[in-house]
């Protein structure tokens, strides 16, 4: 397994007919293999930008990202991505979506079929292989996206608000699924979310980011994701330690928001 090293990332978006946007400034961190990092912060603080740089979809204006010994210069299968929505292929059924990665690599058909069945079982979609994407609920679609990403057995899974479009109940179930997957596969996961509770519950490490320019404001080590695997999630989220942390982070974010409002007003 490979560690992720982010060193001095700077990102400036050139805006045609406008002043450039400094989206990230000197973002540096090391993430050991097998950690689950959650990114939290007010809108516009550069979370998506950072994730896109890790995925290799954007080249930073400064700094480097390395996974193991490899410098990241573009997208690659060792880094899988789960988007918020709309990234599944409607012209393929569930099975074909999950099999997309192996197929692109020319993998053996029989092997792929077995793998796909395995993965669908893992995400709780056994028997849905021949369904069309539009026949699935939002939660089921995200399960397919997860399975599709896992089919290539990536070292790192990047998720940009993967549960953002789901209702509260489905969201909680999916959080459980992500934790289970993390435990079972031991993969490195970087997950962006807008929900403080989700960031705390899933994050084994948590960055609170600040805007203008985007940077890491706080770096937390959290116990909840590991206990979350044993304890009942509702009880965990209601525990005093969890609530304390939640309030601490919420007030931190509120301060930032007020600062932003001050800037604008």
């Amino acid at each position, binding site marked *: 397994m490979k560690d992720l090293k982010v060193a001095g990332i700077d990102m400036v978006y050139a805006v045609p007919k406008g002043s450039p946007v400094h989206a990230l400034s000197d973002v540096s961190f090391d993430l050991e293999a097998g950690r689950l990092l959650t990114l939290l912060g007010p809108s516009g603080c550069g979370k998506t930008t950072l994730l896109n740089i890790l*995925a290799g*979809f954007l080249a930073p204006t400064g700094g480097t990202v390395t996974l193991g010994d490899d410098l990241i210069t*573009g*997208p*690659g*299968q060792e*880094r*899988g*991505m789960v*988007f918020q929505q*709309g*990234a*599944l*292929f*409607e*012209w393929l059924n569930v099975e074909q979506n999950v099999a*997309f*990665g192996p197929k*692109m*690599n020319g993998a053996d058909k029989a092997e792929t079929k077995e793998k796909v069945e395995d993965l669908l079982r893992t995400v709780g979609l056994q028997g849905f292989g021949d369904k*069309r*994407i*539009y026949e699935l609920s939002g939660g089921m679609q995200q399960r397919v996206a997860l399975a*599709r*990403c896992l*089919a*290539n057995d990536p070292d790192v899974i990047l998720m940009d608000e993967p549960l953002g479009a789901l209702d509260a109940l489905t969201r909680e179930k999916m959080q459980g699924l992500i934790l289970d997957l993390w435990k079972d596969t031991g993969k490195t996961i970087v997950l962006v979310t807008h929900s403080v509770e989700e960031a705390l519950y899933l994050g084994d490490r948590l960055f609170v980011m600040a805007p203008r320019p985007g940077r890491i404001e706080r770096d937390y080590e959290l116990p909840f994701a590991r206990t979350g695997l044993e304890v009942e999630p509702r009880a965990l989220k209601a525990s005093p330690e969890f609530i304390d942390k939640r309030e601490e982070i919420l007030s931190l974010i509120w301060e930032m928001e007020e600062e932003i409002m001050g800037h604008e007003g």
Partner: protein
Amino acid sequence: MSENGSSLFRRATGQNDRKTVTFGDAAAVQSLPLWSALSLAALVLFWWAATRTWGFPAEFRAATKADFAANGERFTQAKMLVQCNGAPADVCDESMYTQWLSPRSFPSPPDTWSGFKMLWTDGYKGVTLLTHAGTSLWRVLRGMFWGCLIGIPVGMAMGLSSRLRGIFDTIVELFRPIPPLAILPLFIIWFGLGDPSSVKLLIFASVWIMIIAARAGVRTVNLSKVRAAYSLGASKWQVLRRVILPNALPELFTGIRVALGVSWGTLVAAELTGTGVGLGTMIFQAKNFFLLDVVVVGTATIAIIGVLMDMLMRIVEARLIPWRGKG
């Protein structure tokens, strides 16, 4: 009228009957088949009644004799009439014209039916209606084939590269508004009369539509899908083949349907170039001899084939692109 009275003329779906807001609920408006049947019946009735008044002389019915050219007397009469259209007044006078044919002459439904039967079995100038229609259809299909083969790659290239878009945009925008008919004289000079120029005209009619459809189709791709494909290990070619192309299918299909309609409509004009066989040729030649029943049967055949093609495309589309308009 009673609100609950289940009339044949009202929508049959019970659950919609419970709506209180109906006027303005435009999405729920659908074509009621019974009303369609009624309007069609009214059309035929009007046709029948009108032709009772303005009859169609038997001499001009194709059904009277299949080989019209051998019918010397009728042929001469028809020729005279044709000449009357542009001849000096002392050669032809109005009475000669009206003696044979009232200006409002139109074959009645039975005339048309017998004309159809004659065209079906004996044909026009020895070529059956089926052959005429098949020849025309084959031309349209060839035109569409080349139109797609050229238009889709060009349109996709335009959607994928700013440079290519720049190169082709001016050309497409300049040529697209030209009605195919206007370019027909040039095509006749370049490619000669008949098949070559008519098929090329149909390529001209369809290619711009396909270019624009393909360009629009490429643009509908969601960046997330492309990025997801690259992250899953796809090459550029695989992204094009496995993501961008299937993603553009709905737009491409719309383009094909529009282009088919336009091509079919352009066909009559294309066949003016004097190809021996084809619905358009048949109509234009029959017109010269006042064989109005042939003209009407030919026109109706064009209409019916046009409708059938569109229906077929809808069925194929529902099969091929079931995700259209969903999610």
